[in-house]
């Protein structure tokens, strides 16, 4: 069981990882790194869920973290498929260039 002294630090680390991932999504231009930042955000949520699960002595947080891992795996498959598609039609890998949908 997680001690009460360590629990805020777990939440702090989770918040740090999440906001760092959001920062990476905002400032990086390489879509691969943007995807990795999204993975970082999902992992941060998992850390918070498992921390709460350990602190509250309940296993439900672990079940939800499992669901998050499944969703992350599906998201990576579709996202990297999209990236290979973008690359195969000869486009530069830069999220600022890929703005056809806005027009």
């Amino acid at each position, binding site marked *: 069981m997680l001690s009460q002294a360590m629990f805020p630090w*777990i939440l702090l680390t989770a918040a740090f990882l999440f906001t760092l991932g959001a920062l990476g999504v905002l400032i990086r231009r390489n879509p691969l790194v943007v995807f990795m930042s999204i993975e970082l955000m999902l992992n941060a949520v998992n850390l918070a869920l498992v921390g709460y699960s350990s602190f509250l002595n309940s296993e*439900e947080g*672990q079940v939800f973290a499992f669901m998050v891992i*499944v969703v*992350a*795996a599906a998201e990576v498959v579709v996202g990297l498929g999209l990236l*290979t598609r973008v690359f195969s039609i000869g486009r530069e890998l830069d999220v600022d260039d890929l703005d056809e949908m806005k027009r």
Partner: protein
Amino acid sequence: MNALLAALLILVAISALGVVFSRQTIYSALSLVLTVGLLAVIFLVLNAQFLFVVQLIVYAGAVMVLFVFIIALLDPASEERPRLTDPRLILGVLAVAGICTAVFIAARNGVTYDTSCTTQAATCMHGYTVGSLASTGVSGADPYNTFGFPQNAVNRAGNVQTVANQLFHTYVLPFEITSLLLLVAAIGAVYLTRRTHTGVRRDPRAAERWADELTEGID
């Protein structure tokens, strides 16, 4: 336990910095591998042994290998490091600092949870009997206890058993829906990465020509 957990949390924060601020994409990927592995160890310390294994297999095993494959395939150019005076970077760092401070203060002051739930031997809101470790007596000969760390009372039957019990009883419908999600993702990935034989598939005489070539080969 606390010292190990603190060291792991610091290491995971440092390696996460490497993911966002590396110039080369492959360094970001390797930092993410390190982050994911350290998070797996944190899960182990927090007595989530099942998630430790799932995290290693799915993230470090499958997702990161896929990332490294795609990096090797696409060979993305290295990126300019953003200037320190970039307003987006300054705003982002301020947001990171502000949100982290807010979360830490909120967690420290306990606005979101009832601390009496964990400090005393009392029945928690989940209906589990939560107690201090000395009173629950789970520290005995427990085959599922990792590194001799204190065991969660709820995990007494074993972490895999408790999680499986939740997955296949309480949350069986969401669990089944994830199979649909994975199916859709697999179909989408196949659709997106399929090879389009441009000019061959849409040409109505392609089959005819192919048959001609085949017969020529025979002749």
